[in-house]
């Protein structure tokens, strides 16, 4: 596949993984960039995107509902029907207000197993549910394959393992960002190792690996310089998100990251508590990502936040929620369209007991392949045939997100 210039340059010149070289071939600021954030464990979308218009919501959740706007610890009003979790006040709400965020409720997969394992896999594979599943190719990898001809495509998983959605024929790099630079191989030793591989078939991968590492470490140096200038040092997802932003601003345009800890069967809390803390960390991280990208690259970036399914609409006996069906996706980006930015988009219905799916969950009205397919078509100008390669047999709906 065509790699970014700096990577192929690094490959042909074994020792050339310097700052200057990496920067020289950075994606242009108007290169479309896409980051998929997968919330593993099925986050409770009803606590994030609160159906404040629904009396039934408050009946069904006596201890864990987010109060109505205006009440103590109440939801932040988004429109007449929906509110946002109060933990998002300093992070995602400003993005919404500046039309750089939108939500797609009733989103998800038609997979009905309600198994984390099966549904995460089936979403990442992105294949029709009733057909034979090919475990070797995920939809992000197929997107990368489809975009291969574009000279500056550089996909990257910001995870310790290559996730299922990025596995497949297109070569995709991966690196975890939380613990970089501890006990690894330093620059001098990297050169000595790279020299052993000169002229071997593995040389490109070895050099690229060192080049990426250098870039990550450089980004960390930037962090430390900033911390010196009294910036608050980030931790948790915020830290990872900042590092991702540096890398996606300078080098990578197709990214993946996952965030765990959403399986809130017990004591999930409401405006404060376990889930609120997780949402707070996530929101801060995403806002930091937008900030760090810089205005122009951010204008061409879309971050999609998805999860394998939603949770039961009613609170369970342990002040938590169980495995459900429909959830809410988030789309963030500096270039969201006027129809999308600061709006609730996609097919919707009133939130009432009568509309529950199997009398327990949100239905799925906006299937993930349809939503993401429509987004990819717009971002990358994909033809219907190309879309079918990414999401075979999908009925793609254009939500005009960008």
């Amino acid at each position, binding site marked *: 596949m065509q790699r970014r210039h700096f990577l192929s340059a690094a490959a042909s010149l074994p020792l050339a993984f310097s700052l200057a070289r990496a920067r020289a071939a950075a994606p242009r600021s108007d290169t479309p960039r896409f980051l998929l954030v997968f919330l593993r464990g099925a986050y409770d979308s009803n606590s994030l995107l609160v159906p404040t218009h629904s009396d039934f919501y408050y009946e069904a959740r006596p201890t864990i509902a987010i109060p109505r706007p205006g009440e103590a610890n109440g939801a932040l009003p988004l429109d007449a029907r929906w509110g946002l979790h109060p933990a998002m006040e300093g992070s995602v709400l400003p993005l919404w207000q500046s039309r750089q965020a939108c939500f797609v409720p009733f989103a998800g997969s038609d997979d009905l197993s309600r198994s984390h394992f099966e549904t995460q896999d089936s979403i990442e594979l992105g294949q029709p549910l009733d057909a*034979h599943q090919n475990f070797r190719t995920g939809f992000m990898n197929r997107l990368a394959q489809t975009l291969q001809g574009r000279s500056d495509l550089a996909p990257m998983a910001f995870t310790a393992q*290559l996730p299922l959605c990025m596995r497949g024929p297109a070569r995709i790099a991966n690196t975890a960002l939380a613990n970089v630079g501890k006990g690894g191989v330093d620059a001098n*030793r990297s050169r000595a190792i790279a020299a052993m591989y000169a002229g071997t078939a593995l040389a490109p*991968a070895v050099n690229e690996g060192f080049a990426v590492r250098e870039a990550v470490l450089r980004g960390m140096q930037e962090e430390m310089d900033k911390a010196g200038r009294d910036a608050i040092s980030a931790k948790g997802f915020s830290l990872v998100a900042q590092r991702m932003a540096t890398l996606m601003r300078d080098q990578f345009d197709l990214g993946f990251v996952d965030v765990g800890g959403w399986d809130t069967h017990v004591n999930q809390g409401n405006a404060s508590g376990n889930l609120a803390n997780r949402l707070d960390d996530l929101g801060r991280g995403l806002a930091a990502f937008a900030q760090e990208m810089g205005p122009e690259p951010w204008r061409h970036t879309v971050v999609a936040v998805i999860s394998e399914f939603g949770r039961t609409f009613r609170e369970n006996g*342990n002040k938590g929620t169980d495995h459900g069906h429909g959830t809410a996706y988030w789309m963030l980006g500096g270039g969201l369209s006027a129809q999308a930015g600061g709006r609730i988009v996609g097919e919707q219905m009133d939130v009432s007991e009568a509309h529950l799916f199997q009398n327990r969950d949100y239905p799925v009205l906006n299937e993930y392949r349809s939503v993401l397919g429509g987004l990819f078509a717009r971002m990358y100008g994909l033809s219907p045939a190309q879309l079918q390669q990414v999401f075979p047999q999908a009925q793609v709906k254009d939500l005009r997100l960008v």
Partner: protein
Amino acid sequence: MRSYRLLTLSAAALAGTLWLSACASHVPPDAASIPAALPDTPLSAAQRQQWLDRVSWGASDSADRQLQRLGLQRWLDEQLAPRQPPRLPEPAQQHIAALEISQRSMEDLQRGIAAQRQAARTATEQGQGEGEGARLRQEVQSHLNQLAAQAQQRQVLRALYSPAQLQEQMTWFWMNHFNVSTRKAETRLWIGDYEERAIRPHALGNFRSLLEASMRHPAMLLYLDNASNAKGHINENYARELLELHTMGVGSGYTQADVQAMAHVLTGVGFSTRDADAPPPRLPPALQADYRREGFFEFNPNRHDYAPQVLLGQPLRAKGLAAVDEALDRIVASPATAQFIARKLAVFFISDNPPPALVQRTAAAFARSHGDIAATLRSLLTAPEALAQQGQRFKDPMHYVLGAVRLGYDERVASDVRPVIGWINRLGQPIYGHETPDGYPASQSDWASSGQMAARFDVARQIATRSAVLFRAEPQAPLEQPPYPDLAQRATAQARVAQWSAASREALAKARNVPDWNTYFLSAPEMMVR
């Protein structure tokens, strides 16, 4: 322990001295390949190291001495039919014996977890205290995590130290072939038993028995859902993977109709956690004789679809569980299965693209022996095409990490193998952690991406500089000094380096200290292949 090791070492050292002198006089040190028919002529040090890297979890000085002592033919005979149970060095035996999964029977473990679950439910229902039910549920999860972690430790201890090295490699191979994942919650309870009682005993035995043992185990029945496959509620998941991943292989000629037929045949194949002598479920008189209960395995005629089925173009004549047997016989006997298994073995041991003649030869051995795994392996490993291809197999993380530890510390048993598991995790091949039923892939392109190479060098550096973490009694205890092995002193390391490229030897020559020499040695391109 002491006497055991001394005995082995001195015997091996004696034999080794004699062998080496014989070797030096008869065989040129750079002989290109092992002779085809495995005559007991001496091999060069490099050839022995290549052979051990292929057939064991990695060459070490003691393994090399043993190979020299026995000669290739006898060494392979012993590996293909190892003494059972294999005798590990005493500290490794003790470590395994002390694990909860070794001390309690599977029945006991299962009842214990069920009781813990019940206690959590009761606490919740009775509203005992704030969060008591949640605390108890948390305990169940942490207990399940411990059971799975112990199974990982046992696998690593055996892989590192068992004298039955080929059996251990094949245990991993079949665990991966009949993959189940601890990501599916209940698997954590069963995984140790699955490996110990369904897979390892058959790892060098008969493929048909192995297939049936995996089919009957709760780990597989849960993971691929056949436990919920019943008449009127067909679940094709296991039936499909049985044909696609376990036996014939995708595109080998079976059809969707065969998958459906197999799913119907498999209805009622499940397991029960009731007491082994509990009375069977109430059954119509005509079906009572069909009921089976063996250990956890249960065949429940009430859930079985007795409609006649056609599989692979022929009707099945038997009924009930006997129809399952007939179907498995037919599937295992199909040429597609011999071909599929032969190719997978050849890829695992030899290279991404094994010579077609080698695959044919191996498939023929499988068919001729009716799925005798040892006979199939003997044919594969001693085939001239296999002996001629050395160093073509890119090491997956298991082979890389275990090989480095065996080389570095040989028979000195780690008191804590969790760092080994951590290194393997870091490289993306967590034991029992592959989510989908296809198991970990084997090809170079699956393990040699840029991020994976960078991570591999990081792990190399850690082993090179801090592998004494394996010998701490407590995680916080200080490391012994120096906290690394001196790899340059290992005879098998020296034998390797002599064969390496000028570029690799140049890097080694530049190393200024032992940790750096170790780092470059473990990072060399030649160490990435076996």
